[in-house]
């Protein structure tokens, strides 16, 4: 096997003339994130042997890569992204209409102008950053939060470490509120931040994230739609310096949910309830926001789930509860952040194990709360079938390297749930006072 070469992550603003792409020496290739000014529209993975790229070839590939997202922003029909549902027409889209298509001229400038005309409401937003012993990334995150335009109404750092190491960093940023939650568990930390937050909207990001300057503008605009109760946004890789980072982004798909909007609603939930609703596809806790009124209605994060407890899925379990109540969640890629994926080579396998553990625990928690059999069906039928297929399938395309760890994660998820079953439930809605 050849030795790993880091990938070059490059931001390309298509509104600036481009002279083509040349790879720096000793890189594995270029991961190009395509934007038009502050609008993220698509990406390209260019392996070293495809480079250099002439200007015209690059623009052609870029145009092809961003066409779906551009179509989605410009037209009523024909370009909707597919929801993760099993159905005839997962995009719930009608065919494109020729008339508007033919009038399509300077589409990027048109999109920019149309977006510029949408006012950004002045809704108050609290940003909560939960952190645990990662001072350097936290400093970068807080620096980026300070540069947001429009700015946050309040920023809270929840320190989830026993020794309170984040206070020193937080103090360097005037106006940032420090909250201590020494009891380990991301859900506990999220809930601790929530208790202190005063905004109409609550946005969460992680300490290893750098948000786009317009992040809160996109979030405020999304909630201008009264029907939206929660949202997630685009998560792009900050760097692809190690094999684990490249694998996570490229093979696993990272946290990227695409460049087109998606709406998860009651219909989505009911269509998928029998198979286990794929709430994990909705987004990532590194980039999510809620109306604060939602928590009084459905409760807060389940403290058995999340990093430091089951491993993850505290976010998706909350979305499950919301959708089950008939609330609507929007994925809006205009709200973009960059996430520093775990760098250590061993981290990928460990991460997969954590994910499966959290995922399985969340399925059981969801079943416990709602008695929807789809959760059990996924746990007892779909997941075993998936692993059986991956174990027995021939061919080089199947990634088997983390198979053992993933399956161990599943078993540990069951154990985790069983051990924590009698534990206190999420604080009931009545006990929650904002």
């Amino acid at each position, binding site marked *: 096997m050849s030795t790993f070469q880091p990938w070059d992550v490059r931001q390309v603003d298509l509104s600036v003339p481009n002279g083509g792409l040349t790879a720096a020496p000793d890189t594995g290739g270029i991961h190009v994130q395509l934007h038009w000014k502050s609008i993220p529209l698509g990406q390209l993975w260019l392996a070293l042997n495809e480079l250099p790229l002439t200007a015209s070839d690059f623009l052609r590939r870029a145009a092809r890569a961003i066409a779906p997202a551009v179509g989605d922003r410009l037209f009523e029909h024909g370009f909707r992204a597919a929801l993760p549902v099993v159905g005839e027409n997962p995009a719930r889209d009608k065919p494109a209409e*020729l008339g508007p298509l033919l009038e399509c001229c300077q589409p990027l400038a048109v999109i920019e102008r149309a977006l510029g005309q949408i006012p950004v409401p002045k809704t108050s937003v609290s940003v909560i950053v939960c952190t645990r012993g990662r001072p350097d990334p936290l400093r970068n995150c807080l620096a980026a939060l300070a540069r947001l335009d429009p700015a946050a109404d309040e920023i809270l750092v929840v320190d989830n470490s026993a020794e309170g190491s984040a206070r020193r960093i937080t103090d360097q940023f005037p106006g940032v509120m420090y909250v201590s939650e020494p009891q380990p568990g991301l859900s506990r930390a999220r809930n601790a931040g929530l208790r202190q937050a005063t905004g109409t909207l609550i946005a969460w990001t992680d300490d290893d994230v750098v948000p786009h300057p317009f992040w809160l503008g996109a979030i405020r605009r999304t909630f201008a739609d009264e029907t939206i109760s929660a949202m997630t946004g685009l998560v792009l890789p900050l760097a692809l310096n190690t094999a684990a980072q490249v694998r996570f982004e490229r093979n696993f798909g990272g946290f990227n949910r695409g460049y087109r909007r998606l709406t998860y609603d009651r219909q989505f939930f009911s269509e998928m309830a029998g198979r286990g609703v794929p709430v994990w596809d909705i987004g990532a806790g590194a980039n999510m926001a809620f109306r604060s009124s939602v928590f009084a209605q459905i409760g807060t994060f389940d403290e058995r789930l999340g990093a430091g407890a089951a491993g993850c899925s505290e976010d998706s379990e909350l979305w499950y509860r919301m959708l089950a109540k008939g609330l609507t969640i929007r994925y809006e890629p205009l709200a973009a952040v960059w996430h520093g994926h775990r760098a250590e080579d061993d981290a990928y396998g460990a991460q997969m194990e954590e994910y499966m553990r959290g995922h399985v625990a969340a399925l059981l928690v969801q079943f416990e709360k709602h008695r929807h059999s789809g959760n059990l069906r996924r746990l007892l039928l779909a997941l075993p079938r998936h692993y059986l297929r991956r174990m027995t399938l021939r061919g080089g395309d199947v990634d088997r390297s983390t198979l053992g760890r993933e399956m161990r994660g599943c078993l540990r998820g069951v154990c985790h749930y069983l051990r924590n079953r009698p534990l206190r439930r999420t604080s009931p809605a009545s006990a929650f006072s904002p």
Partner: protein
Amino acid sequence: MLIRRKTRPLAYILHEAPAGTVLTTEVLRSLIAEAAAGKIVEEAIGEELATSPVASAKPSVTAAICTRARTKELARCIGSLLPLQESHGFEILVVDNAPPNQETSALLQKFPTVRYVEEPRPGLDFARNRALAEAGGEWIAFLDDDIVADRWWFDALEDALRENPDAAAITGLVLPLELSTTAQIVFEKRGGFQRGFDPRRYGSVLPGNPVHPCGAGIFGTGSNMAFRRDTLRQLGGFDEALDTGAPLPGGGDLDMFFRIIRAGNILVYEPRFLVFHEHRRDEAALQRQYYTWGLGLMAYVDKHRRADIAYRDRFRRLIRWWFHDQFDRLRSSLRGRHPLPARMVLAEILGGIVGLLGEYGRSRRRIERIRKEFS
């Protein structure tokens, strides 16, 4: 139906309807939107992002038509090129291959701006190499006599050369001139000569294709291809043992595409570089064509798998993949799920087998005799 936006072809729609059907504007609009929505947006974005082209010296071009005793088709082909020649000024060269009579040279009397040369040795690649020796242009575009060049054929070539100054070969889109007979419709449904509507640059690596560049069929087709003349000459021209007419009428274009890329050059596929081809009208001729496709491909493969040790594995994989693919096609054809009748698929498979069984070697001995005869 060919869908274009400005001069660019975006999609080709084959829509089956009983005789007498009137396609309403509405149906037409939805057909077009369905087939080309993504491409229309892509084109609009491309236009918005395009930087003003850098003026560069235009290379001189020779359009070479190799023909043999098909004056009707040849006159039509030349007729489509003359207006382009008038507005752009390039050389048109007709190579008359082993003419059985004087009809072609007589026809050429009517076209004073078209050069005529005769190549007595029978075989398409003898004719192509003759064109290569005679051509005055820095670029030489080979056309079959049974095509009609599109109005923007020459503009597309110039644009492609400006956008890809490093290219050694440009291939283009070939669409049907007519779909009058069952054979022609069957051929086009099976994919015809189409290589899609996305321009592409091919170099020594093609991600996701382990047999690249041995599967030379994706690069284009011999009825519409242009090359940098000096590159062709350095490579020694076309292989005269391929494309000899019966019994081995094919493979010369694939062989050249492969050699172009194997030597480290860039090949560009540009769908705007468009011609219309008169497909074989009757089924017997079509069946023969499928046979010769299999034969030509495998003769080319056989030649290189022996000579090119470094790529031998890729050629082996290509052979395995090709037969696998053909038998899949045969199976679905027998179940009535493929537009191509089983005997056509069988003909292609049979051609492939004959091609692998030393046809190339036999052909070399045959052309050696032809060379001696005419020296």
